[in-house]
């Protein structure tokens, strides 16, 4: 129908086309790819971006898997509360949560104070602020719902009869967990992993607030360039690069793992 098509064209497809168009116009078709690559800072940031995305994805996967199982296994009420908390944080402004992490992680901030009172750390604190490991907790925090949703869907799709079958066939808890439950979560895990990876590639707010000098991800570079508007060509080229990477990955992932269907469960 017309209204959504119009909105998509005006609000997404048009801007996407223009970004790519500007990238090509300013740099030429070859330059659009090679020109950003000549800047060591860009190459560096692409590496950082990939590293961050991969670590965040793995960490989120582990947390997501554990959390999903917890939701599924905890007493019903506790499970509902856990899920409620996940959703609550999901709907709370990204900015606010990120700022909360700033206050938590900064040297002598909430975490250090807590750590010191528990005797876990000395005056120097944990030293997570503005480091790559320090980006992990907030990023995982933000990505967790995207991971839990598809895995939870897989868990729900797990036929209770199969669990009962495994049990009545004499399976021990470990056997049931390892040979039945975990394999059943595979497709949900893939969907979540891809979703989180894709989202991590273009993530801006958290690195902007919590990133230190060593954590200049691609989105940060684009953000800084965008803020200055000195080099529209480079900015557009970087934007187009990120965009194409994300959209291609998304299209492929959606084909194979139907990740777009995961949103239905939000």
């Amino acid at each position, binding site marked *: 129908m017309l209204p959504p098509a119009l909105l998509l064209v005006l609000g997404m497809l048009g801007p996407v086309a223009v970004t790519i168009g500007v990238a090509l116009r300013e740099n030429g078709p070859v330059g659009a790819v090679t020109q950003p690559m000549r800047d060591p800072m860009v190459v560096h940031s692409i590496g950082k971006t990939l590293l961050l995305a991969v670590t965040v994805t793995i960490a989120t996967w582990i947390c997501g898997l*554990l959390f999903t199982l*917890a939701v599924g296994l905890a007493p019903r009420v506790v499970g509902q509360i856990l899920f409620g908390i996940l959703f609550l944080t999901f709907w709370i402004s990204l900015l606010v949560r990120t700022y909360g992490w700033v206050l938590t992680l900064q040297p002598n901030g909430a975490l250090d104070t807590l750590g010191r009172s528990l005797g876990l750390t000395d005056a120097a604190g944990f030293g997570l602020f503005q480091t790559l490991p320090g980006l992990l907790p907030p990023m995982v925090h933000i990505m967790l719902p995207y991971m839990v949703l598809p895995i939870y869907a897989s868990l729900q799709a797990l036929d209770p009869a199969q669990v009962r079958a495994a049990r009545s066939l004499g399976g021990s808890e470990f056997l049931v967990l390892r040979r039945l439950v975990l394999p059943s979560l595979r497709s949900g895990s893939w969907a979540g992993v891809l979703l989180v990876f894709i989202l991590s590639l273009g993530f801006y707010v958290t690195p902007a607030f919590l990133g230190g000098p060593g954590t200049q991800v691609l989105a940060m570079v684009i953000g800084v360039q965008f803020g200055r508007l000195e080099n529209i060509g480079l900015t557009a080229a970087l934007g187009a690069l990120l*965009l194409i990477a994300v959209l291609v990955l998304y299209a492929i992932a959606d084909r194979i793992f139907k990740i777009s269907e995961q949103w239905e469960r939000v």
Partner: protein
Amino acid sequence: MDALRDALPRTRGWFTAIGVLIAVFLLAPLIAVLPLAFTSSKYLVFPAVGFSWQWFDTVLTDPAWQGSIMNSARVAVTAAVIAMVTGTSAALAVRRISGGRRIVRTVLLAPMVMPQLVLALGLYLTYKNLVGGTSLTVLTLGQATLAMPLVFVTVSAGLAAVDPNLSRAAQSLGYRWPSVVWRIELPLVGRSVISGAILAFAVCFDEAVLAFFLVPPSQQTLPVKIWTSASENASPAIAAASALVICLAVTLLAVVALVGSRPNKQEAS
């Protein structure tokens, strides 16, 4: 799920403990921010000292904060309405098309994975010559685009619970499709439409990246005001504003849960 609980009586406890730990982790940043909204110190410093409402007072009475709340509300309402109309019609349309449904869905949901920064860049580049690139109108357009998929999925989920035969029945009873949509499908997914619109509003109200790059300074929205305040003065007003944002999110979520927990009429039958 019950079967699973029963199947793993011994490991359950461990997982529950881990789940609770992760939940604490999820709440940690909120726990860090909220008390600071009531600090009586003039600096945004942890832990909070004393107790005072002064920062709420600041946020609610200072014209700059007030204006930003108004701007946010205006943009979010408009964007949510646009998202509601477009998302709902998209959901209704996708139900009708037979071929290529997957591709259409993929495209419709693409805004959810688009890096918002790049979307902001694209919007800026596209509209800079038309409206100077930065205006509430462009921001509204961008946020509506971001929020549309939310309405789309909510309404799609609602529609999925509506028996497709209802539409066919209405048709065979003598109605053209516009009447079928109007008399049968919309009334039945009314709650989903409203839930979707509320979620869209919540998302737009909180949206920071597009707003940061697209709004003119005289028309900052609340998240941008929080963002810039964080770099201008680090005052506890930020925490107070954050607390308000959290309250709003909780309220909206509760409303959605209430609207959503009563199923669309179809499902109740």
